[in-house]
């Protein structure tokens, strides 16, 4: 598990990038915390810098949109999903559980 930040540092509508071998984007979508791969599955762009609307994020480069709950693209130009990651909030702190294949 990786400490992301205090919940108070990520108010609703905000996002943060967690660096690592595979960077992860963590979002506060109207009070619910989601985490997905940060790099758009279409081309090199950081989804944590995208536009958050409900539980969808729009890529800041080419406007592909992803469902934060599933990682599935909702429109072109993205065709492949991004991975989702588990997050938990414990005592006001956001924790990221990276997908198993990244742990090693």
């Amino acid at each position, binding site marked *: 598990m990786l400490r992301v930040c205090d919940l108070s540092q990520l108010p609703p509508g905000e996002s943060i990038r967690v660096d690592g071998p595979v960077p992860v984007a963590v979002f506060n979508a109207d009070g619910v915390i989601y985490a997905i791969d940060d790099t758009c599955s279409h*081309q090199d*762009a*950081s989804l*944590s*810098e*995208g*536009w958050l609307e409900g539980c969808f994020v729009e890529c*800041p*480069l*080419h*406007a592909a949109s992803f469902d934060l709950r599933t990682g599935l693209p909702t429109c*072109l*130009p993205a*065709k492949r999903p991004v991975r989702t990651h588990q997050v938990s909030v414990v005592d006001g702190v956001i924790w990221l559980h990276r997908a198993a294949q990244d742990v090693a």
Partner: protein
Amino acid sequence: MKTITVVGASLAGLSAARELRAQGFDGRLVIVGDEPHQPYDRPPLSKDFLLGRAEEADLALTDAAERCALEAEWLLGVHASGLDLAAGEVVLDNGTVRTDGVVIATGARPRMLAGQGNLNGVHTLRTIDDALALRADLDRAERVVVVGAGFIGAEVASTCAARGLNVTVLEAAPKPLPGLGDEMASACASLHTDHGVRLLCGTGVVGLSGDHRVREVLLSDGSAVEADVVVIGVGVIPTTSWLQGSGVPLGNGVVCDPGCRAGLANVVAVGDVASVGGHRVEHWTNATRQPRVAVRNLLADSLVESCAETPYFWSDQYGVRIQFAGRVLPSDKVEVVEGSIEDRSFVAVWRRENSDVGVLAFNHTKTFTRLRRTLPRAV
């Protein structure tokens, strides 16, 4: 309409074909493309592809499953040479297509240089074949001269610098990108000089010299710059010559109303070739957004929707992601609202009266994305 023919098989044409099916057109769909390739993405051609970090397969815009679902007849490597609306035919080099509706998406071709000649080592960059030829030539080059400091020229210069080549950029105007105004144009120009690329502005090119292969670029001040490879990036000309005499109104491209309708029943135009409501836009995003509106109007056979996208483009140069949105005038006031030009990391906003009308960012995507949404919708 029983048959609709999309002429042009790049991003705008493909997007139009997708929209036709998405909006319920279930007739015969023909797609004509003069390149032999399946639709591919052009922006990487001047960047990762030229650098050798992306290959042809990485650029594909469609896959077999999508092409199957589109149920289109693809005529690739086929040149459309005319449009005969009275007969209801698109004229091809090797025959005709009988059609009821036409989507014109023929894009644009690179402008040539007066006195360019026919020397080896001189390139333009528009197609994947252009990019393959240039990439192969760069493998043997040391000195590259880029003519034109617009976005294609700047991206090629950046890629050549990353390949360790000696690069000179020539720009006829006193500064590159004059449309951005003095301060922001200087910010873009500085990226070249920051990375050891020589930028000569206010210098016209009068010719090229060499025997079979280019050796020198001759300048208007009487001097010359040595070159193993020359890349010409001085803009594009909309591909409309095949429409001469067809009755389709031509000006700076195909002249369309705000809904992409080209003055005649059942003909619309999209992408780089289309001058829509007085604006011809050569950006990737435009080619993906216009077709929805154009197809809607085509299928409705009337103007039911106008294009209202705010122009947006991005460019990656020297590790800096440049993003711009809006339409700005020299009289607009521009102000840096975050970061600093010196750090090559900033957001600038253009204001007209009390409205924001344009946003430019260097490596400031998040704020750019937010501010872009506050711009007025273009009409």
